[in-house]
């Protein structure tokens, strides 16, 4: 699991690589911390290389989504692989988080 965050003004580009599972979920949450308190942030998370996410990972996405909404920002997940998208669909998270 690897998280790369690059910033360009208020635009944040995040690239996720690997698997968010039992062993990496806590680290993923830690990696996302800096993004939680940004005002008017425009966050794009590239999920092209995200292979898997557990329910704990989903919880982090959910928390991030809620924080972004509170801070009037935007969160978009892009290039999501089918099996990951399915998890978001099943749990109904695709209804809450914008996935393109």
């Amino acid at each position, binding site marked *: 699991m690897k998280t790369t965050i690059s910033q360009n003004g208020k635009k944040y580009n995040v690239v996720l690589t690997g*698997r968010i*599972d*039992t062993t990496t*979920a806590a680290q993923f949450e830690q990696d996302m911390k800096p993004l939680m308190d940004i005002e008017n942030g425009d966050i794009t998370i590239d999920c092209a290389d995200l292979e898997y996410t*557990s*329910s*704990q990972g*989903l*919880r982090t996405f*959910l*928390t991030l989504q*809620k924080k972004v909404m509170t801070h009037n920002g935007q969160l978009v997940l892009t290039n999501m692989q089918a099996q990951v998208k399915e998890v978001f*669909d*099943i*749990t*109904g*998270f*695709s*209804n*809450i988080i914008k996935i393109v």
Partner: protein
Amino acid sequence: MRISKSFSARLSATILLVTSILFITAIMVVSYYSHKLIAEEAIKSASNVLYTTTIDINKTLDRVESTVNNMQWIVEEHLDDTTYLYHITTEIVASNEEIVGSTIAFIPEFFKGKHYFSPYSCNDENDSIIVKQLGNDKYNYFEMEWFDVPFKTKEPHWSNPYFDEGGGQVMMTTYSLPLTDKQGNIFAILTADISLEWLTQKISSLHPYENSFTFLLCKDGYYITGDQPNKTMKYDAETQNKTHNEYEQLGKRMIAGDSGTLQIGDYNAFAVYGPLYNGWSTAIISPYKDVFARLMRMNLIIIVVSSIGLFLLFFACFRTIRKLTQPITEFTVAALNMAKGNFQARLPQIHSQDEMLQLYNSFDYMQKSLTHYVQELRSTTKENERMESELNIARQIQLSMVPTNFPNNEKYDIHATLQPAREVGGDFYDFLVVNDVIFFVIGDVSGKGVPAALVMSITRAAFRFLGGLGLSIDKMIEKINGTLCTRNETNMFVTLFAGKIDLKTGLLSYCNAGHNPLIICHADGNAEYLHAKPNIAVGVFDGIPFNPEQIQLEKGCRLILYTDGVTEAEDRDKKQYGEQRLLDFAQNIEKNESAEELVSNLMTDVKSFTKDAEQNDDITVLTITLKQE
């Protein structure tokens, strides 16, 4: 103890060795130079003694000669008065204490009818002077050296030592002065005798060293006096010491009238020698043994004192080092004790402000740290044991929350299993049958472990409570959602699938809140996923509606509900069990299989897929079979 001893001994021995070498070197250097210096001083001092004595003897001899010479003209004036001649010899003896006898020996027939005529005076035993006429047939003085030699050479003469039987009755030497008439013819010999006793005493008193050997040698090699009194002997190098050529050399030099020093043998002795006034020569031979006796004694004292000193030094070093290193021994014992687990091992008391104190401080620090660390470890271990024990109890409680009495009657057959990945987990299932209606639920709390277990118990309690109120499924889930959303700071959410089956009609009302789709195994053996309208998981947003759905079930069909622990069960290569394999399993269920067998077979199939890989998520399966009547 052994180490300390040998350490002290070794160090002490080294110090002793180095000190000894220094001592010995110093003694040798000092001894060498002292030796040289003393040898030089000895020769100087012996020469001085010889010189002083030579002057002394010369004076005496000179006095004797002067006395005799001064009487010459008196004799010549009184040749007509033979009585007075006795007076003259008496005067000579009386005037000079060294002179023990004196005579005026006349040639035959100097006085008519007197073949022998020699008035003679000498000291007797009582130191009074006796007078007599010396010459007669028994005492034919014409043949004696003291008369014969000066008579022939017409020169004054000192005789060789001789025992004067007719005259002084002592060992003596005689100074002879020839008296001549106007024509130069010798008519008498005027003499003075010197007792060799006096010379012997004089010579014997020359003792620069205890075993110094002094002697006089006259012109033709006669040994006049030395340390063997009353003996005159001809000096003979061969009889003196055959191996010592130096004696011969000494004799030759002395006879030649030289003065100087001569080394005898291989540093055995040295001789100083010098001539006397009358052509005699005297020598002092001093053995080096005596010369260096004091030095030897001093060296011996130094060696003894040094040895005692060295021994004391060794003893002091040994004691001091052992005392200084004693704490090391005690530290060793303490370290061994500490290694055995006794962290209170007594450390030696250190009073010095040195490296030993630093060692003590390090040891003390180590001891305290270890004690602290072990205490912490013990308390942590205890804490861990307590937590483990509590988690085991929690596991029992959690497992007893889900029903384990599974109904299996003519209408339906229900079975389920819950296998948490850790002690406690976030999966759960439940069912209850009220008036021919089966309520059932399966859920999965995000995350695992204790946090998940807490949320799970709330959810399950809410379901139990709401299930008995006769609410529709969607309303029931909305209420559960409301409960979970309250103060949900950590954004824990639950995916769950809840439904109710009316046993009379076979109608299944259900609502899927973000959970995996269930599988329906139809009576004909065909199986399919029931893709319900997706709802958001419970606990995400408060107050949102959940869409209920309905489907008509036929008799003989089965429902298989599961959590993602089944489909996402992974083998060692992180390959997932997957929905397809689960569907394949569902399609191959035997018709008459009981719900319990179904669950058991599914678990076996999952296990045969993951093999020895660790279970990473809670696994829950719930299956309901509607029996054919």
